[in-house]
């Protein structure tokens, strides 16, 4: 079982190979960010640039969405027509890419998808909560993470500091890939991803209302959730479009509580792969995934289990129907998908 550092080196080497003579004109990966715990998506156009390449427990950001703009710009330049772009995918990232392929946002033939095993992504907030201050660097294995910080060194069990999405991991399989590096890493699947939704459902309407009011009223409309989301990829968002009738660019009054997040969740209903990026990137720590998962839970309960992005063919639940579908009235009566 290769250590995470070894996987990083393998990826760097493979990206180099492909850039050199594999017909790939650019590689999409992660490079070191401002801190050791915030690697950022990056383009690598030459082998030399790959020195900055990073793959570790914080390589959470989804990369596939950047393909849309990359390919668009490439087309505009009119050069390198047909050239491919390498994108690295963790298993759960592959669902997002599949969605982009399915919705024709990205052309399959322009992508070279390299799947990489994932050791489980880390949650910096959980590390901080464990008493770590000013994290400078870290060493990781599949089971433990040792943090070097101004507050001293600290070794934590990996499971304890995983992102929420990794505790309910979809498993080590790739929904789409051209080749796989370092497969077969153990995943942390098995958690009940609907536990949070169920808990809310069991509350009284008043409790639910005040819960969401409290959460959503913190929204500052930074649009991080929208920007991170692999399916929120409209050329122009309805909230930015004066012609849509619902334009609202900044937070004022109660629009975020009443419209923005409901509409956004509805827009991605049936398309959300439950990647959890919206909640992870939210600077206000709003549990946005609880909105999306409510839809997922309902869809599974009403129309049969569905995993968006599992394949590039199946009809999404909202572009499909059956004669015997549940009536909206019955849904309300029985209290949603509970």
């Amino acid at each position, binding site marked *: 079982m290769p250590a995470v550092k070894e996987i990083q080196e393998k990826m760097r080497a493979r990206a180099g190979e492909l850039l050199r003579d594999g017909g790939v004109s650019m590689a999409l990966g992660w490079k070191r960010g401002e801190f050791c715990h915030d690697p950022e998506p990056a383009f690598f156009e030459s082998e030399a640039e790959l020195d900055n390449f990073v793959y570790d427990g914080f390589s959470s950001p989804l990369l596939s969405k950047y393909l849309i703009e990359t390919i668009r710009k490439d*087309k505009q330049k009119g050069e390198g027509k047909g050239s491919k772009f390498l994108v690295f995918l963790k298993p759960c990232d592959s669902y997002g890419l599949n969605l982009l392929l399915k919705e*024709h946002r990205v052309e399959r033939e322009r992508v070279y998808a390299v799947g990489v095993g994932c050791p489980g992504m880390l949650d910096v907030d959980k590390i901080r909560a464990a008493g770590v201050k000013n994290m400078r660097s870290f060493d990781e294995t599949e089971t433990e993470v040792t943090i070097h910080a101004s507050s001293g060194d600290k070794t934590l069990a990996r499971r304890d500091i995983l992102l929420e999405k990794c505790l309910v991991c979809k498993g080590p399989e790739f929904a789409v890939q051209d080749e796989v590096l370092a497969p077969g890493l153990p995943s942390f699947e098995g958690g009940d991803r609907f536990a949070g939704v169920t808990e809310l459902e069991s509350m009284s309407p008043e409790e639910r209302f005040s819960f969401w009011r409290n959460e959503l009223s913190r929204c500052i409309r930074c649009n991080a959730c929208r920007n991170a989301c692999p399916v929120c990829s409209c*050329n122009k968002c309805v909230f930015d479009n004066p012609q849509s*009738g619902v334009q609202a660019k900044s937070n004022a009054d109660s629009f975020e509580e009443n419209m923005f997040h409901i509409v956004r969740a509805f827009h991605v209903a049936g398309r959300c792969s439950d990647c959890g990026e919206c909640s992870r990137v939210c600077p206000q720590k709003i549990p946005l995934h609880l909105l999306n998962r409510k839809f997922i839970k309902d869809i599974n309960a009403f129309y049969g289990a569905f995993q968006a992005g599992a394949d590039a063919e199946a009809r999404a639940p*909202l572009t499909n129907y059956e004669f015997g579908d549940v009536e909206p009235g019955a849904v309300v009566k029985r209290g949603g998908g509970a």
Partner: protein
Amino acid sequence: MQRIGVFVCWCGSNIAATVDVDAVAQAVKTEPGVAFSTNYQYMCSEGGQAIIRNAIAEHKLTGIVVCACSPRMHEATFRKTAATAGLNPYMVEIANIREQCSWIHKDREKATVKAIILSRAAVAKLNLDSPLTAGETPVTKRALVIGGGIAGIQTALDIADAGYEVDIVEKTPTIGGKMAMLDKTFPTLDCSACILTPKMVDAAAHEKITLYTYSEVEKVSGFVGNFTVDIRKRARSVDADRCTGCGDCMEKCPSKKSKSEFNQGLSNRSAIYIPFAQAIPNVPVIDREACIKFQTGKCGVCQKICSAKAVDYEQQDEIMTRRYGAIVAATGFKTINLGRFEEFQYAQSPDVITSLEFERLCNAAGPTKGKVMRLSNHETPKTVVFVQCVGSRSTVECGKTYCSKICCMYTAKHAMLLKEKYPETEVYVFYIDVRTPGKGFDEFYRRAAEEYGVRYVKGMVGKVAEENGRLRVQASDLIADKQLVIEADMVVLAAAIEPDPSARNLATLLTASMDTNDFFTEAHPKLRPVESPTAGVYLSGVCQGPKDIPDTVSQAGAAAAKVIGLLAKDKLVGNPCVAGCNEPLCNGCSACELVCPYGAITYEEKTVMDHGVREQRRVASVNEALCQGCGACTVTCPSGAMDLKGFTNLQIMAEVDAICR
């Protein structure tokens, strides 16, 4: 900014008694865009319309709101009024203050307030209206008829007689269909061939009709007025242009063991064959499955014998692409498989036959030259039992829930024909109900019973068993409350009919809907019985539901009339309230394409200008001739690129806002 005129109708006292019409007219005066408002006793009357026309001219109105009865009543009237005054007819909105206000509310104050709100909503919507023009598409003046039975032939003849080109595609080697197999026809007992074959000849000879026999429709694209169809012309292995129809090849063909489809398997035919003497075209076809040359490579007798050099073993299937304005489905029927009705012994005893087989036995050109005989020993039957409703009106799995409609009458016919040929025969008909609605039908059935002495027994046959070379028929006589046991020589089963199996695939190609029994669905069961819900697709004959010949011919004519009505137009004017794609906003995600019930949305690579940047993008494109304006796409579209003219997102939201103000 619009200049809107608001016209509040009293509808006599219908509105004015409950709604203060003057207050409504005054209240809307201050609404944005409103330049003029008035009220009048009857807006729909000539006087009312004159007020509207004058106001449009005098106040230079750009749109009008009529506060009156339901738009379902007079929207069209006021659109015409607007058009005569030079306004675009779609710059008209109706506030329904009668059905949805004055008629249901008693409190004058509440009703007036509601009428004002409804009028405001209409004004708010009109403020966002823009002139709409219906799209036009040209019509290809050629029709395709699928199926060459009496339904298809009649439809084709009627269309062709009106001067339009028609192609008939028939999957068997000849036209004629089931009617060609029949002996006599009810209720007149004239010979089926005598009335059908002239029509077949007419169809073949008609300068406007082209026949494609032994052919099938393989692909259909396009839409009303502009269908493109791929027809597979299967290889006959005989050159139709050279063949003289002499029949020498059939005579010399050494493979003579194939069951004749035309004779319901009651006789054999050669591998190279013409289905029947009057077949059109009178050109043989080689059944490659049965042909020794095709199976073993050793034979070639027919090619050697053919003086016209017409036999061509190398012939290939040919795909032809043709364009049509209208398509008529006339795929007909078949009888259901009776193998699973074990109680009737159909599969076990040769003397238990279907009515269609009986039809062939009766026919002078049939396998027995018209002699009705037991197939087990070729003797003339002394006692014949007819069983009605075999598989019809049945909820069991191998049956059909519907009434097959034709069996009562043809059974009476069979009983009569039998009695006519062999007066000594004892004939029983077991029925559940005798259904004879039709001109001269009941008289016909009564003749069978009264003049010919056919014994009609109310009750079903429960069991047929072979016993000592005869058939023991156990049945009930419900009127006498007796169980009858009849020693019969022949049992004739009136098998239920079902749509031809090819209809299912055709329905998919045409995107025409079917019911649970695979009959094509009509656009409206009473008012549009010969049209499919898919525009430009029409239905003729049994493919729409069980029918006898008179009904089929009437329906064939009706379908032809609809086709002629379509082909007579040079252009089709569509519904202007159709969906449209705002291309710079379109993501190309295909969601709208998936929910469109009409296949009106396709995706294409287009050059799109977005913020001054020109680029190639995959964008949705709406075919306005196909779009019916339901709006499913508009809600599915995540980016709001799809919008519906006449019911735009902004318009509906403006109405919401006006109501909730």
